[in-house]
């Protein structure tokens, strides 16, 4: 019994990372119909930014105590990562959108931007892995034989809070209404006096900011940083978003936890090298049965 609960906790933790990243994918997709393939690498950039921010705050120049440093690192990381995301949008995606290019070209640009981020990081910082400093002292609570760390709880709670926040933004606020309107009809929206570019920037700020938060939490849980850490987790989070039905906030959240649960379940039964094989096979089966994901609504095509 303890064993099962312990694994459920692990699944929830992994699912939270996938869900946090998948939310960014799905936000951008929901508004722009664009797969932002660079999102996994923005997560990686977020982890690195949090490393440098935390290093600076703990270092001799600022000299803050770990708890204060942590509280300052969170918003600072989110802001700086959001800047990276918005820069990408301004430099690479917006000119293409202005020209009315086919969306395939934008997708390829996104894929290439991801590669640029990975390899320029590798070129500038080198291939040596970085050790993330300990910001929050690790506490282990033992409840009925189940080991519970404060980090795990923090990650899971953050994912749920972020989900509720984004759900509120998209369904209850004016900005969210504008986002849904853009995804509904891109050509009529500027005529209605809605500043499309600003809304898109807000989307990127939200998505990249929470990717940065995920990067910070990931770096705190698994304190080794390398330039390619965002690649596989990014692809998997994207898969989670698609399984849930991309463009749907709830779908990304459920898909993330589903993928986390599948992976942890596979690892407990089979050798851990089978994890990817099973995760991707189950994904393929889900998409085969239900081509638009669990919560996605098929778009009807007019003839």
């Amino acid at each position, binding site marked *: 019994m303890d064993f099962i609960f312990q694994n459920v906790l692990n699944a929830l933790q992994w699912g939270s990372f996938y869900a946090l990243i998948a939310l960014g994918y799905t936000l951008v997709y929901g508004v722009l119909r664009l797969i932002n393939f660079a999102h996994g690498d923005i997560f990686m950039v977020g982890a690195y930014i949090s490393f440098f921010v935390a290093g600076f705050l703990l270092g001799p120049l600022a000299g803050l105590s770990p708890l204060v440093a942590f509280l300052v690192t969170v918003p600072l990381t989110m802001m700086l990562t959001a800047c990276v995301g918005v820069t990408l949008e301004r430099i690479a995606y917006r000119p293409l959108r202005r020209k009315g290019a086919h969306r395939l070209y934008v997708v390829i640009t996104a894929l290439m931007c991801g590669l640029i981020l990975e390899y*320029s990081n590798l070129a500038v910082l080198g291939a040596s892995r970085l050790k993330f400093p300990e910001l929050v002292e690790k506490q282990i609570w033992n409840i009925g034989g189940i080991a519970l760390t404060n980090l795990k709880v923090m990650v899971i709670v953050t994912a749920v809070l972020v989900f509720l926040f984004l759900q509120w933004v998209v369904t209850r606020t004016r900005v969210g209404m504008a986002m849904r309107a853009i995804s509904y009809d891109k050509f009529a929206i500027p005529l209605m006096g809605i500043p499309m570019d600003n809304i898109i920037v807000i989307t990127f700020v939200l998505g990249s900011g929470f990717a940065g938060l995920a990067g910070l939490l990931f770096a705190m849980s698994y304190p080794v940083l390398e330039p390619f850490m965002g690649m596989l987790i990014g692809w998997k989070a994207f898969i989670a978003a*698609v399984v849930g039905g991309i463009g749907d906030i709830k779908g990304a959240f459920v898909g993330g936890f589903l993928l986390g649960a599948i992976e942890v379940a596979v690892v407990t039964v089979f050798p851990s090298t089978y994890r990817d094989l099973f995760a991707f096979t189950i994904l393929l089966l889900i998409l085969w049965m239900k081509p638009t994901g669990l919560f996605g609504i098929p778009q009807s095509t007019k003839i």
Partner: protein
Amino acid sequence: MKHHSLNALLAIVAVLLLVAAHFGWIDNYIQIVVMTIGINIIMSTSLNLVNGNMGEFTCGHAGFMCVGAYVSSIISVLCFGSKFGDPMLPAGSVLFVFPFILLIGGAVAAVSSLLVSVPSFKTRDDYLAIISIAVNYMIISALENMNFIGGSRGFQGMKDTYWAMIDIFDGPWMLFWVINFTIFTVWVIRRFISSTYGKGVNAICQDEVAAEIMSVNTNKIKIINFMVAAGLAGCAGGLYAHIIGYVNPQSFNILKSTEAMVMVYLGGMGSLSGAIISAILFTTLMEILRSQAIIDGMLSPVTFIFPDWEPSAGVIKWVMIPLLLVIVMQFRPEGIMGNRELSDVFPKLKKFYRFK
């Protein structure tokens, strides 16, 4: 003369290359580059069938290459190698058997493409992209878990087949096979695209629903198109495995698929000659950027300011190539050729050759 000019030109170039390689006028490095160009031409033209001509968006082409590479290497080791016991076939028959080994690898890769083509009946665009990525990861991950063929440590022993060929006649055999298979691929794709099936493929690209109404059996065409593309990629994988003499699942990961995609979109979607030209350009560029001296020269202003920074060519290369593609997408998103062929861009060329 017009009928055979292109064939004659290709034959002359091929013979010149082979003679030059045989007598050592071009060294091994140039030979490897030429062979890589050949393999990349196969990869880009075959991916162009799916991504260009059919207008689907798949990004897992390297997975099929991986299947072809592994299957043909295993058969090759079974037939001529000593890794799994005694060779099954006499070494003298290698010249007749080797093309069939590659073709069997291609055939198995073609069958594995059903993993992508069957879901593609119902899905398009982003969902299909995900399915193809998932298939790529599945293939790699499945091979990594097969310990009898080395798992993630890779598989080797294919060089025995090459040595068997060398025993018969000491010449540049792999170059010979790469040239033959490249020409074979381009010929097959050209014939396929100008056939009734090819017209169906283009119809699906324009409008799938309308094509279906016009009595195009879209499911059948999709299966055939994916099979041709994956089969040719499998042949490319077999050639790659026999050139290097070692295969590893991770050398066919998403980065390799991205390479093939870069070549297709650089050349222009749906243009066969564009895919060939971009494969040649891309491979040459990769080789040029591999040189540390050139990278150092290009980055000398930066390293002058930051003397501690030592950029490595292998890394900078992968910053520059995506950057190049981003710039291409900004200023000429249709690629080098658009969806036109060489003879459409330069109509005067039509006088000199005919390519069917």
